[in-house]
């Protein structure tokens, strides 16, 4: 189905299956969305991405409809603007900006950033639907008072992670995000990848470890690579006052495109752990005692030499870590073959 369509009067090539939102983005038109995460099936729940399509009686959700040849799409006009503003105002009636901890401590949430951009204020008042969910897990805070029911977390959990820990339960205004029988995440099939937190466009799901550390305005983001395994997922370290206060995935990293696992997402607080080693330790009379690097290397060289002399190079097996860089892993095998003289070398990333 190749052909051309028009969005706001501009000609666009149709890519089979590509949504109107994605096609518009490709030519620099940002259609507002809240429930959209391009990695999972659209849910078309927030209805903000409504566009008019010539020949259709009602507007369509641009995230859930492919751009087809000959389509004439209008992404902005007074009707659409009025509907979008009312929808946002309705969402704000449940989740006013003043109460958002994500905006305050981590960085602007999508909902409030969009409301600010479109200058929408909470004109409607009334009951809120969600409730704070006590959950004793160490990583994820679940405050559904902030939830706008975009169902990004449940789709990411089910479709992308295949964890199926959470799903929408109940109906209508009393819908809730729940595990089986509303238990805690620890009792569910949750793997604590944190992807629900990262896709959440509000403060409903937050990284517990990041809260209470700094104001959002104090932090800067530093691109880095997760040090835990050989996959090398891109991460962004949030740094404030010289300390790493949290991690978010690098959405543009080709390896992970925003995905992370529990280690990269929640395991980096070892950086400032008081239990970290700061000097080499040598066991003397059964007790580990601090030593200098010269002492430590002296000991290693002496022992290696002794073993090689007594038992030959075949007595060695070397095992290197995928947390090392390719260069250091190369050096490791060079060391095994050229210095020790053995082929007994392997790497944990091989399994």
């Amino acid at each position, binding site marked *: 189905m190749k052909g051309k369509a028009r969005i706001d009067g501009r000609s666009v090539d149709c890519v089979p299956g590509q949504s109107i939102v994605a096609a518009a983005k490709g030519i620099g038109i940002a259609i507002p969305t809240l429930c959209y995460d391009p990695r999972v099936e659209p849910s078309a729940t927030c209805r903000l991405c409504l566009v008019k399509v010539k020949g259709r009686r009602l*507007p369509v959700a641009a995230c859930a409809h492919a751009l087809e040849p000959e389509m004439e799409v209008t992404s902005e006009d007074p009707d659409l603007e009025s509907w979008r503003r009312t929808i946002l105002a*309705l969402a704000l009636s449940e989740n006013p900006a003043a109460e958002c901890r994500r905006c305050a401590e981590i960085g602007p949430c999508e909902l409030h950033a969009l409301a600010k951009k479109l200058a929408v204020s909470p004109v409607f008042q009334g009951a809120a639907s969600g409730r704070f969910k006590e959950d004793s897990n160490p990583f994820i805070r679940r405050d559904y008072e902030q939830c706008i029911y975009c169902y990004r977390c449940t789709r990411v959990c089910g479709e992308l992670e295949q964890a199926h820990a959470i799903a929408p339960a109940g109906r*209508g205004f009393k819908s809730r995000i729940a595990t089986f029988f509303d238990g805690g995440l620890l009792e569910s099939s949750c793997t604590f990848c944190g992807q629900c937190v990262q896709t959440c466009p509000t403060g409903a799901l937050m990284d517990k470890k990041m809260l209470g550390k700094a104001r959002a305005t104090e932090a800067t983001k530093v691109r880095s690579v997760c040090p835990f395994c050989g996959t090398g997922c891109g991460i962004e370290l949030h740094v404030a006052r010289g300390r790493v206060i949290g991690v978010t995935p690098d959405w543009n990293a080709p390896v992970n495109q925003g995905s992370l696992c529990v280690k990269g997402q929640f395991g980096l607080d070892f950086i400032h752990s008081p239990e970290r080693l700061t000097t080499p330790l040598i066991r003397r009379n059964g007790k580990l005692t601090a030593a200098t690097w010269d002492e430590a290397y002296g000991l290693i060289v002496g022992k290696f030499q002794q073993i090689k002399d007594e038992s030959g190079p075949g007595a060695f097996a070397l095992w290197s870590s995928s947390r090392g860089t390719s260069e250091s892993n190369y050096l490791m095998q060079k060391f095994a073959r050229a210095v020790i003289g053995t082929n007994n070398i392997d790497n944990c990333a091989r399994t």
Partner: protein
Amino acid sequence: MKELRPNPQSSDPAPFLAELHRVAKGGLLSRTALEELAASLQTPLADLYSAASFYHYFKLDGDEPLGEGVCRGPVCSLSGITARAHFDLPSISCPGLCDQAPARYDRGDFSSAASSDGGFRLPHRANGEEALFHHIRAPDRRLESYRRNDGYGMLLNLVQNKSDDDAFAALQASGLSGRGGAAFPLALKWRAVRDAEGSPKYVVCNADEGEPGTFKDRPILHLQPHLLLEAMAIAGYLAGANVGIIYLRYEYPRAYDVLAKAIGEAEEEGLLGSNVGGSSFCFQIHIRRGAGSYVCGEESALLNSLEGRRPWPRERPPYPTSRGLWGRPTVVNNVETLCFVPLILRHGADWFGSLGRGGSSGTKIYSVSGRVCRPGNFELPVGISARELIMDYAGGPPSGRSLKAFTLGGISGGLLASEHLSLSLDYRSPAKHGVFLGSGGVIVLDDQCCVVDFVRSCVLFYEAESCGKCTPCRIGTVRLRELLDGLTGRGNLPSGVRQQMEKISDTMGASSACGLGQSVPLVVSGMGRFFAEELREHTQRKCRAGVCRF
């Protein structure tokens, strides 16, 4: 949406609802029962919980069990009808006993304080020719009585003479369109399924009838099931399907027994099942009971419900004709629509055309409820005037009272005033007032009723039944109801209440994904347009009917 398949180990095309009903003890689903079911249906626990927790009549361990309840819906809460007792009982959603209101629920059964007929109540007799109801008035429901009236004759004729083209031509010429609400031409739909790629194909009968003030499918389901069964088999033959599923609303438990018995009878006589009438055509009909949810009557939500997903509506296109049950081409038709098919094939398109009035074809079942002397079902020409239906057939408001307002399409077709009584009830004329004939339900309000209070009970119904998918519908129904609470003396009244209501309902109408959210504005705007003065009085805390207490 992802391609899904029915469990290949099971021959059941839609096991989910049947299995849930099987393991629900007194409506209660235990943790262990769901764990076992998740394993056998190969569904993740959270997903099964997600789907099961959607319905009114499945309670999960830890929920308050529902033993008894009363309907406080748009009809049952009208003045003069309201149940005076049972203030302590929880509310149930409209169970379709609006002509015998007020309705009650008691441990799996639905009844009325006003009559003992329930679903078996005979429709009123009209003066003109009845098509469908002709088959209902026979003294018994048994297969013989249907066959005496040439029942199953058209199915046998089709499968033996393979006269598909003639049948399609007759259906097309008749102009028969959907009676479930959207009025889509039946022949077009069936052709689309026949020509669509993909197999197996399915025929689904929508017997969910959840619209308040609509109980038109009820007499067919309770009193002449064979008409429907024959129609479904014909649909299967013409559209190329071998499996039919009746999605029956939970609130019609007796109809389940009637239908199940009828399927057994027809199979025994070789009219359903394998080799229908000795031909090579096989057609198996399954019944699936819903579990209490209005939105499951929306065809794509209905399909999700059958598949065991969370039953919220799908984005369309694609339509069920190309991607229906399990992503396969599927005919979804309303009970009443289907039942006209054997009759059109028997008597011809011209006959069907002659039943209508003023350029419309056919008859229609109209359900009239509310403040009239003879509430009930009437089979009358499409194109009859609202006045004739309400004032003549249904007897108008009780003596001494005058008609104030009436609805169309249950509550989802819109709200009109007494000055609209000359309106012709067909599939075109109502649009000039921005309203629709829809399902054919008409609710009547007299001068003792308050329009604002009535609209509030409609919005309350939508709030309770919104699936929660769309932001504008999920929150909008609640905000509208809160504003109406203020207008009816139940809550505080913000300034600019009318503008707020207008904004919300305008947005809901344009932006909601399904007909539920799209219809909410109709009653609200009807109130604003035709009862502006009465609405204005409420902003000043006055209710001319004396219903609202400030």
